[in-house]
């Protein structure tokens, strides 16, 4: 149970954040980091645990955000009822993209997912009647209050409430990924990541398991998008574009590919760091690039992998 201690500590700190962080801008960054941690965790399922480099996760994120926002603003759906269709739409696009591209390997696969991401944001931009085009969807209302049946209700108007909602979602997603990876299904994912030929000779249906990982991961990315929409209250086609997907890859690589904490650590680090170094704002991307190269060279397992090595050395002494 000792390996749960850092999680427990992290969880307690996370619960205390709205009471401790008084700077509203910093609080905003933390909320964004939690939402992007969900996106990064979803990508980690395919990149870290199944070995597929997807650059389409920005698109799944955007598809989830748009589905929910359109249903709420144009069809007057209750926010909570939009979550399943938002996840389903993202998963369906993930499955279709997977069917088309999963027979490709390595770079070819990555490039096809990249093009898919471009297509999705272009369609969102040009399909004016449905999506309001480049103007995007604004004034997305806060989630409807949760009725406690006579015990009052929980309002989700405040940032603190949205923060806790995102945090709870992140925790559930982590639990989902953890239980999936630590199961026979996860062993099949892992086998595919390490050695596809060997995996298939052991009876692992490569296409089926890659599709499964991809669809589940896309659904989770869509869920992150839903939360993003209700927090920011405004989305546009850029949110479904390439950059969110690229950033998610970067967060994972720097935090630690294929570790459970890596996507969260990497996201927190990279979302808050550039803001703390405000003076370097113009050089933000340059700094990120350098950081990425340094990490891949010296910390192939990212920050979390590096910490793990340190601890092992400490224990060994």
């Amino acid at each position, binding site marked *: 149970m000792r390996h749960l201690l850092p999680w427990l500590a992290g969880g307690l700190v996370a619960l205390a954040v709205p009471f401790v962080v008084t700077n509203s801008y910093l609080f905003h960054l933390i909320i964004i980091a939690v939402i992007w941690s969900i996106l990064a965790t979803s990508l980690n399922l395919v990149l870290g645990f199944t070995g597929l480099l997807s650059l389409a996760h920005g698109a799944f994120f955007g598809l989830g955000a748009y589905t929910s926002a359109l249903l709420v603003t144009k069809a007057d759906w209750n926010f909570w009822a939009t979550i399943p269709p938002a996840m389903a739409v993202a998963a369906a696009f993930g499955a279709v993209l997977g069917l088309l591209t999963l027979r490709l390997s390595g770079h070819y696969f990555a490039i096809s997912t990249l093009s898919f991401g471009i297509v999705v944001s272009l369609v969102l931009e040009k399909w004016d009647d449905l999506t309001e085009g480049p103007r995007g969807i604004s004034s997305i209302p806060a989630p409807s209050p949760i009725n406690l049946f006579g015990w009052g209700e929980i309002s989700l108007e405040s940032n603190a409430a949205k923060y806790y909602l995102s945090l709870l979602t992140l925790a559930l997603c982590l639990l*989902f990924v953890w*239980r*999936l990876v630590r*199961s*026979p*299904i*996860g*062993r*099949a994912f*892992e*086998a595919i990541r*390490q*050695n596809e*030929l*060997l*995996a*298939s*000779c*052991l*009876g*692992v*249906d*490569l296409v089926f398991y890659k599709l*499964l990982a991809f669809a589940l991961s896309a659904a989770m990315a869509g869920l992150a998008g839903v939360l993003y929409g209700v927090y920011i209250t405004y989305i546009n086609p850029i949110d479904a574009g390439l950059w969110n997907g690229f950033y998610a890859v970067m967060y994972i690589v720097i935090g630690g590919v294929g570790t459970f904490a890596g996507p969260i650590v990497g996201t927190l680090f990279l979302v808050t760091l550039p803001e703390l170094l405000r003076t370097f704002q113009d050089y933000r991307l340059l700094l990120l690039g350098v950081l990425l190269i340094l990490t891949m060279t010296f910390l192939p397992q990212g920050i979390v992998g590096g910490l793990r090595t340190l601890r092992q050395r400490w224990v060994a002494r």
Partner: protein
Amino acid sequence: MMAGESLVDLRGVTKAFGGLVAVRNVTLLVQPGEIFSVIGPNGSGKSTLFNLISGVLPPSSGSIHLLGRETKGLGPHRVARLGVSRTFQTTQVFAEKTVLENVLAGRHLHVRTGLWSAQLRTRFFHAEEMRHRDRALEILHVVGLAARADQRAGEVPNALQGRVAIGMALANEPALLLLDEPTGGLMENEVLELMDLLRRIRDRGVTIMLIEHKMRLVRQVSDRIAVLNNGGMICEGKPDVVLNDERVVEAYLGTADAAAA
């Protein structure tokens, strides 16, 4: 499978890569319970033959029946489902995983746990995980790796990694086991241990096809031997007959002295 039917039934199997014919019109039958060796010089098509049988490559022509089923169009995972396991010439293991986890990965086709029982951690999930763990440990005892269960496969000495691969293959409870040069990199005494292991595996009812260069092993464990040369089968039969056949000596063994070695 019908009684008396061959476990492996290849008819006129040919594999060409462009103009290069790697396997030429091979017809062979392997009976249940046999240890059947395939020998021949490097590049004679032995590994390609295994790739055809295990579904890694489709044949250019000819038919392959395994356990009475035509395997045309079946990928490796579907062939594995018929009860066929294999190892590779360059030993393939999941290096980052422990020896036990490697064997557990080999249990894949026997797993019934689905997404929801894994998510809800049902009683069924725990019972099944326990059962597979026990079975994997049994298999580690068979291949002599029980003491290394928790070591990473990549950190196990090379000579023993082959046994991890065999353990993984056995975990599928195969009817047919294809072993591609299992003695690669083994010392003399380790070869003897392996010979013993192969017999024990056969005695558990597993039919074995073996690609091998170590003639003493081949002579002692094989029920029958097929010899490939330039992709074609030049001879097939009992060890004493095949290893003394003139064509075999000429094509592969070189001199009569080498055959006796």
